[in-house]
């Protein structure tokens, strides 16, 4: 058995995966966002303590202190955490797969208010408290 590759972008966008597909895509985007952010954060922390790199470290820090970036990274972290917990629970207890769609609805019910509060706080601070 082999896996077919080379699905065109047009075919990919027409794929009717609905809720589960959306969480799959958002989980990947969130995960990549976190990997890039944490890697930059570690490198910035390292450079800040080096005589040759402190200005570069400060510049990198300024990127993720910007409120727009914070809205993005909070989405990545909160969604990836909640969706990851759903995936872990369903994968480790496969009998629950039957309730996957209900679990995804529950996930959005948890995610939206938590992320909403985070965005509200970030925007409020950005507008001067």
């Amino acid at each position, binding site marked *: *058995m*082999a*896996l*077919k*590759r*080379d699905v065109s972008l047009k075919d990919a966008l027409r794929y009717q995966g609905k809720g589960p597909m959306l969480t799959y895509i958002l989980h*990947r985007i969130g*995960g*990549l966002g*976190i*990997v890039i952010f*944490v*890697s930059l954060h*570690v*490198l910035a*922390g*390292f450079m800040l*303590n080096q005589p040759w790199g402190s200005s570069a470290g400060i510049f990198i820090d300024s990127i993720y202190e910007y409120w727009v970036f914070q809205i993005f990274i909070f989405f990545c*972290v909160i969604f990836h955490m909640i969706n*990851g*917990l759903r*995936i*872990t629970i369903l*994968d*480790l207890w496969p009998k629950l797969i039957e309730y996957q769609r209900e679990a995804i609805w529950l996930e959005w019910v948890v995610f939206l208010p938590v992320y909403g509060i985070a965005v509200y*706080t970030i925007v409020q601070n950005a507008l001067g408290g």
Partner: protein
Amino acid sequence: MNLRSAPQRGVNFDYIMWLYTRLSALAMYLLGFIGITGALIMGARQQMSLPDLMRWAFTPEVTHVLNTNVANIDAWKTLFWQLMGSLLVVVAGAHGYHGLLNVLDDYVKSAGWREFLRYFTIALWLVMSVIAVYVIFTS
């Protein structure tokens, strides 16, 4: 048309990392919970805002409390918290870089490049882990 072999059954790198990804997710929840509990014991309720507490929970590292009202940071930079921060960053790093490998694996057609990327992400994880632990222990 590009074809590649379906994953093999049994215990192999892919299966171990599949399991690791799930178990490390649970471990990160536990480590975050320990971070929050420890912070509350050390006085976070009076001295930190909720975002600062979350920041500490994601990585218990002393620079994460420098901009708070914590008066004495000695308790926040003990060997225990340095080890906890290091453990979290190494476990999360393996989880994250393997996730990156999974994504790349889906878009890279050449088997040779996929093999290269597997070793490259392991090397990247090792280098970033050393840098992160160095930062934690020298902050």
